[in-house]
Structures are given as C-alpha cells and as structure tokens.
C-alpha cells in the first residue's frame, strides 16, 4: 500500500518542468477526450476506439523503428484506423468484425516492429502503458494545436453530429450527411486517441475516451450536461491520476484507469440509488 500511495516530495516533483508539462498535457487531453466521450458512447464506438488505439500503437512502433517521431506515427496510425473503420464498417455488426480483424493485424505488426527496434526499452513499453515523462514542450504544442482543431470542428459540427449519433434515421431524412459525418468523427477520435496513447498507453485509452462518457450517461440524459460531466471526469482521472503516480513513481496509466473506473462505478451506484428513491 505504501508503494502505491505516497506524497513524499510531491511539492518538489510538481516544481519540475517535465512534470508540469505532463500535467498540462493531461489537462488538455481531458478536455478533448471528455468532449468526445458522450458522442462516442451514443454511437456505440467503444470497440472502434480500442481498435483505433491499437493502430496508434502500430503507427508509433513503426515510427520508432524508422526513426521518426513516435507521436507522428501514432497520429498517422490512429487516423488511418479511424478512416478504415469508418469506410468499411458502417453497419454495427459488420463494423465489429472489421475492427477485430484490423486490430489483431495491427497489434501483431506493432509487436513485430517493436521486437526489431533496438533502442531504449522504455520507449517500447511506453507506447503500451503510457508514460508522462515522455511529454516534452514540442509534444505540448502538437497537443494544443490538435486540441484546438478538434474543439473547433466540434463547435461547427456539434448539432449535426449529435443528430447523426443519436438519431441517424431521421437525421438522414432531414438531409444530414450522416456518412460523411461518421468519417469526420472517426478522424476526430483518431486524433484524440493518438494524443492519449503516449500518456495513458494504447491498451488503456478506453479509460479516458469511454469511461467518462459512459459514467456521465448513467447520471444524465442531457447531452450538454453529459458533456460537462464527462470533461470533469476525464480531468479528474487524468490530472488526478498523474499527480497520484508522481511520488510512487509508478505508471500513470494504472492510476488514471483506476480513477476512471471508480467514477464509473460511483455513477452506476448513484443512478441505482436515485432510481430506487424515485420509485419509493
């Protein structure tokens, strides 16, 4: 227990430049991940996000191997994955199998490329489980630019995206370009996933992309309130998880995933108790 929770020297750690970079990165990621999460949940895209994250891992591994920026590789992998899932599988049933097939292939390819990579071992591990020491100032700029881009696109397309995500049949009838929007949304998800992979790791991306939205959907049906709650939860999980991980010096992803899970369970319990109270 002592190894898991410690706050010794937290003050000094928080004063370090790379720690501050990491916290800023977490805060920025929390905004965009939380903003997308309710739409991801509405579209039933949890598995697609997981698949996108694994392909971000493949892209990152490939970048590592050929010696370009890991972040760039992750973005390329995730965006390609988003587009492939968007184009190949628009029907839910078909989409799941397409994702399963592509995910397995990408993961295998990534493992192979990591084995061929002869550089620092922590670079390899970092892609899978995340690491906050990996964030430097250049990454922060990329993160901020992508975050602004994602928020800007959301601000312009929010209403039709909400329509297409929650009520696709009538949205089509009302002239909303549902197909095109699902591709745009897949690219947004790919971008944010790629940003999340270096921090929380490819295998735990769901804890910031899905859990906050799923938790919010348990306690409110209002799209606006759900978005606000999801952003708050993503911030708590990411920034809180990062701070908790500092003193013990353990991977940030474990703490982020645990916090996100607790928030989700808390929301389920809350919803159940409230439901009982409403009946009584």
């Amino acid at each position, binding site marked *: 227990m002592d190894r898991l929770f410690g706050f010794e020297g937290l003050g000094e750690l928080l004063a370090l430049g790379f720690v501050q970079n990491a916290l800023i990165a977490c805060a920025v990621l929390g905004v965009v991940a939380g903003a997308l999460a*309710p739409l991801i*949940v*509405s579209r*039933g895209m949890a598995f697609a996000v997981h698949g996108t994250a694994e392909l971000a891992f493949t892209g990152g591994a490939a970048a590592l191997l050929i010696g370009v920026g890991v972040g760039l590789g992750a973005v390329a992998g995730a965006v390609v994955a988003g587009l492939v899932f968007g184009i190949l599988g628009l029907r839910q049933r078909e989409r799941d199998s397409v994702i399963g097939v592509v995910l397995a292939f990408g993961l295998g390819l990534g493992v192979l490329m990591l084995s061929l990579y002869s550089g620092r071992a922590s670079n390899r591990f970092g892609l899978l489980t995340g690491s906050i020491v990996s964030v430097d100032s250049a990454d922060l700029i990329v993160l901020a630019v992508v975050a602004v881009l994602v928020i800007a696109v959301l*601000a*312009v*397309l*929010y*209403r*039709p995206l*909400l*329509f297409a995500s*929650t*009520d696709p*049949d*009538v*949205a*089509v*009838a*009302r*002239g*909303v370009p549902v197909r095109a929007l699902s591709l745009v949304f897949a690219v947004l998800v790919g971008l944010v996933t790629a940003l999340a992979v270096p921090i929380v790791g490819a295998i735990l991306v769901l804890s910031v992309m899905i859990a906050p*939205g799923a938790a*919010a*959907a*348990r306690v*409110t*049906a*209002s*799209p606006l309130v*759900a978005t606000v709650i999801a952003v708050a939860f993503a911030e708590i999980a990411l920034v809180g998880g990062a701070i908790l991980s500092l003193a013990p010096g353990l991977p940030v992803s474990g703490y982020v995933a645990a916090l996100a899970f607790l928030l989700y369970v808390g929301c389920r319990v809350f919803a159940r108790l409230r439901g009982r109270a409403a009946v009584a």
Partner: protein
Amino acid sequence: MVVTLERVPTVAPAVAMRGASVRFGERTLWDDLDLDVARGEFLAVLGPNGSGKTTLIRVLLGLLPLSRGEVRIGGAAPRRGSPTIGYVPQQKALDPDLPLRGRDLVGLGLDGHRLGVGLRGRRERRARVDAALASVGGTAYAHSPVGRLSGGEQQRLRVAQALVGDPDVLLCDEPLLSLDLAHQRTVTDLIDARRRDHDTAVLFVTHEINPVLPLVDRVLYLVDGRFRIGPPSEVMTSAVLSELYGTEVDVLRVRDRLVVVGADGRNGVHH
C-alpha cells in the same frame, strides 16, 4: 372598357408529381406517376414490400432524384433538410442509456441539421420545443431518456419532432408499426389534428389501412410498378386490387374494417 381578369386563387398543391418515374438499373419501381396532394389532404400510400412506398418518401425528402418526370413540394423542387417537410419514422428500439432526452429529440427535428452548437435563439427554440411537446401531450416525459420511454411515448415524441418545424407536408413512414391499438389511435389522432388545424398535407405510408381508414381522403396503391389513386371506396375494391396484383384478390368489409384476402402469399398481398 377595362377588362379585369378575375384572379383565381391558385394555391399550389402541397405535393405535385408529373410523369414521375424511379428506376434502379433494369427495375422500374413506378412509372409515369401523376399525383397532386392538396393542403390538408390525407393520402394513404399502400402496397406490398418493395413496391416503392419508402422510395416515394425518399424522393419527397430530396434524398433520391427521379429517373424521369417532375416533383414539386409547395411549388419548389424537393431539397434536403427542407423546413416545409416533417418526417415521422417507424418506431425503433433505442438504447436505454442513450444520452438524449425527449426534448432533445424534438429539438433536433427543429435545427439538428444546422451547423454550430445552437447558442443563438435559445429562448425561441425552447418555446417552440415546449409547444411541440405540449401539442402531443409529451410534456411529462420531456426530460426522460428517450431510450427508456415506451414505444407509444417515443412515437408521440416523433410526431412532435416532425411538427416542431411547422411543416406544410407530413411524411409518415409506417409510424404505427409495432404499436398496440391504443397507441396507434393516439398517433393517428395527433396527425389528424395537425392536418385539420394547420391544413398540413399528410402522406402516410402503411401496410395496414384500417387504423387510418376513417381519416383517409385518397389512397395511392402501388404494386409492382402499377398504381391506382383515388378515394378508398374506389381503390379498395376486389376489382381494382385484383387488376393491380394481377391475381384474384377479395376485399371484404367487416363492420368498419377492410380485409384484403389475396389468392396466395406469393403476390405479397399484405393485409
């Protein structure tokens, strides 16, 4: 002498089609369709599966161009997202955890196709959504998650969603499917009240005419590229339907219901 031409009040029909045809490759769904639907008219669109009922709706929604001929809605060519058209789909199961409330569903019918997040004009929007909800008696569950409402409640919201934009034409695509009789009655009453109060034309696609029979002004019956248009008493007869289906079909009147008995299931007579 001054000759004055008396102005005849020419109100454009709500929907007008001339020589309209839709073809998919070799297959002709319907050919040379002439149809005028007046304001306030209730037109039932009947026919077996695959006869092009939903295709007609898609043409009017501006989602599908005609292969030949012309179509006008309120005097203008159909276009996607037109505010003059309301659309009521069939009831479909929704995810109980979908983060969407009743009033959000209705609101999307008003401006869900527009860009932006919708910060401007929120007060007016709220008033219109409230009015639409009240008009279908849906105020009580305006804040409930749509996925947790009953099929009947969902269809009421669907009607409100279609009416919130104050349409001149209401396109209904099997809105009664999977509803029990009481809820069918509620939905048809709401639609009928709308057309009487606002002169809204109604095109009502259905495979079952009885729930709407008292409201129907005319029937468009489509079978295999052939069609007949007219009041129910002229179209829903053994002679006309036998001719349309190309086989022996009997139309029986049992009290105030019509029962259509086909020679066999092969021809897809659906009643």
